[in-house]
């Protein structure tokens, strides 16, 4: 009885939501739970960019953007609920910001014909657009990240890692396990020894892992962490006096939230990134004027310019550019998710385009194609400057080792295609 009553009420509430002819973007955010510290700035940046487009330009191509927010708490079941609840509103693209939820959504979204943009996370082999027709992970993926970190270390060691020991501290989930295969492949090529240290969800308990680091004394530590795990790891590394400049995090382990808690001692910690940092870009004047000062900022409005805010904004920028591309291709402003997919597949990001958007030098140039949904794998290394309170780029953008990564992508996507009976092809 109670169930029927509840469902009846819920049904009326659902039926009441109107279907508008806007460009609908779903923001599956998480502002609660152990990953909230990193989920909030990303979501704020993602939403603020669309708010800016609405306020300043009147939307994209004259069509207003409507952002629908749905809280997932980084939880797979809630993520699925969010997807089902919002896809009927005409969602153009999903950015789940969680590798676990991405894995859930890949088959569902493909069946529904809605593209997923898993920027710098998700299933790495989705780079192969011939198999994963609706999944995009440009501009870089985890395997690129693993390779970028190793390339950086090789450079620092004069061209060889022979006899060195590299430890990987990783979130013991699909997310953290992704780079292992690449790191093993790279270990063969460069001759280092790989040591694996899994940390269980959510990542507060890491004493034993760092005890092992202390015992085995690896030369370098790489980290695949997220949320509370990053903070704890950096604090533990500080506690055992691990040299911070030998500690490199993936791009999801390099935000202000992660290092600030450890104070001065975290100075020198490195993290990868696939976009530029700081708020020294023309677009921030517009965001300040049209979004923050106008009182339209998402969340508390206090995250502008942080690393993850920039990343959220960058993700929104890429989505907006894909919408523009789709609008030009199909000659209509009110595009569908199928057309959005075409827009994403033909997206080209050039320096001139980014400069025109008020983001000069913000990220690498890349071009998406039917075969390559993952960009070219360019990234850079940033370093935490505790005195200045910001991450600074310390290298140029350089490309990951495609000789190692491409065969792995081909192998993994072929396995997926065989398992699911997908015929690869463009």
């Amino acid at each position, binding site marked *: 009885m*109670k*169930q029927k009553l*509840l*469902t009846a*009420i*819920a049904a009326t*509430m*659902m039926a*009441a*939501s109107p279907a508008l002819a806007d460009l609908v973007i779903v923001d599956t*955010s998480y*502002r*609660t739970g152990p990953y*909230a510290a990193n989920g*909030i700035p990303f979501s704020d940046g993602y939403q603020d960019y669309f708010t800016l487009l609405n306020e300043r330009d009147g939307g994209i191509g004259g069509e207003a953007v409507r952002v629908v*927010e*749905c*809280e997932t*708490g980084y*939880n*797979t*079941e809630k993520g*699925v*609920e969010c997807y*089902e*609840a919002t*896809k*009927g509103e005409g969602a153009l693209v999903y950015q789940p910001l969680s*590798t*676990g939820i991405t*894995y*859930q959504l890949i*088959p*569902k979204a*493909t*069946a529904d014909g809605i593209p997923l943009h898993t920027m710098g996370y998700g*299933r*790495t*082999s989705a780079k192969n657009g011939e198999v994963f027709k609706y999944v995009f992970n440009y501009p870089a993926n985890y395997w690129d990240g693993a390779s970028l970190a190793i390339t950086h270390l090789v450079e620092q060691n004069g061209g060889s890692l022979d006899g060195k020991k590299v430890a990987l501290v990783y979130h*013991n*989930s*699909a*997310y953290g*396990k*992704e780079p*292992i*295969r690449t790191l093993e492949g790279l270990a063969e090529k460069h001759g280092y020894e790989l040591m694996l240290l*899994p940390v*269980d*969800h959510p990542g507060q308990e890491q004493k034993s892992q760092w005890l092992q680091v202390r015992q085995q004394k690896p030369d370098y530590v790489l980290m695949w962490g997220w949320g509370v795990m990053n903070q704890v790891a950096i604090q533990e590394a500080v506690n055992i006096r691990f040299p911070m400049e030998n500690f490199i995090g993936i791009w999801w382990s390099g935000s202000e939230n992660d290092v600030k808690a450890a104070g001065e001692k975290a100075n020198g910690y490195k993290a990868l990134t696939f976009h530029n940092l700081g708020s020294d870009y023309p677009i921030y004047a517009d965001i300040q004027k049209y979004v923050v000062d106008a009182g339209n900022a998402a969340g508390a409005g206090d995250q502008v310019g942080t690393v993850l805010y920039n990343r959220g904004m960058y993700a929104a920028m890429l989505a907006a550019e894909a919408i523009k591309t789709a609008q030009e291709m199909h000659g209509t402003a009110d595009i569908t998710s199928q057309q959005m997919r075409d827009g994403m597949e033909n997206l080209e990001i050039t320096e001139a385009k980014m400069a025109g958007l008020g983001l000069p030098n913000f990220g690498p140039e890349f071009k998406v194609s039917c075969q390559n949904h993952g960009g070219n794998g360019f990234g850079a290394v940033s370093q935490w400057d505790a005195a200045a309170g910001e991450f600074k780029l310390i290298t140029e953008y350089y490309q990951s080792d495609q000789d190692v990564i491409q065969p792995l992508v081909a192998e*993994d996507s072929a396995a997926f295609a065989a*398992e*699911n*009976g997908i015929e690869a092809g463009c």
Partner: protein
Amino acid sequence: MIYRESGDFSTTYQQDSQTFPIKFDRYRYYVLLVLAFAVVPFVINDYWVNAVFLPFLIYSIAAIGLNILVGYCGQVSLGTGGFMAVGAYACYKLMTAFPDVNIFFHIILSGGITAFVCVLFGLPSLRIKGFYLAVATLAAQFFLVWMFNRIGWFYNYSASGQINAPERTVFGVPVTGAETAPWAAYLFCLVFTVVCALVARNMTRGMQGRQWMAIRDMDIAAEIIGVNPLRAKLSAFAVSGFFVGLSGALFFAVYLGAVEVGEVFGISKSFLVLFMVIIGGLGSIFGSFAGAAFLVLLPVFLKNVLVGGLGWPTDLVEHMQFMIVGAMIIIFLILEPHGLAQLWRVAKEKLRLWPFPH
């Protein structure tokens, strides 16, 4: 009032031992079954299936399973999440190893495998009980999750450690994988839920159930009157494990389709199912359904009302949900420690003796 009689008038044993002794109840349940099988599949869509019906049906099976162990046999278990994981991984291994066998049998077999594992972890129950047993089963929870994360064979050495359900069909209709129609997934789970409820109900009111209840109420006294505690306890673990394994297999194969063991089958899942049993009512099959409905539907309902209806910020709603659900659990348990099932029973009694309830 609705119930037009005052009290029970059973004249035969058959009448007395019916599942639904009141005629009105009986017809109402038949109507409900007809609705569930013949009407809902035609009106159901993706959202209702994935947000409401599948979790409700699957958690109901898990709650029935745990209720047999905790509610009927008195063996406290905190290992439900781990046992669900056993069901899920067993189902995955069977699905990939024997792709030609019908998924139906895989799911039942997964239940069987879980029953076996559950009995293994139930062995300590012969020596320890109460909180001590809870800790022993908690070890099962952590050990199983660790094992599925650690040993590559269980996830077929996939790069990410995730398991993905390939497409499988029943009578040519896909019930797992992305192409599954909402009604197919719903009916598939509904069949399992209804059969499980029937089996559980009949087991618990027969000799087996009485043995379990005797052990629960006082094991020494039960032993004196001839109940074999070893058989009774281990059979409770086996039956409970079977149901929990079924629900784990359905959870993975039909509902989520891809599973990451640490997140999906973590300790919080064990607590969730235990709360369902406690809120629904210990030792009641109806209570298992009521508890599952309460904990699955209330958050979805609150979210639809507060975000969809009132337009509150999503993070505020999420925090409000924690508070509201938490407060309701406390209020319920203070007002009616025996759960929703008892509340329902009392309401029924009052209605039947209306206008002069005692």
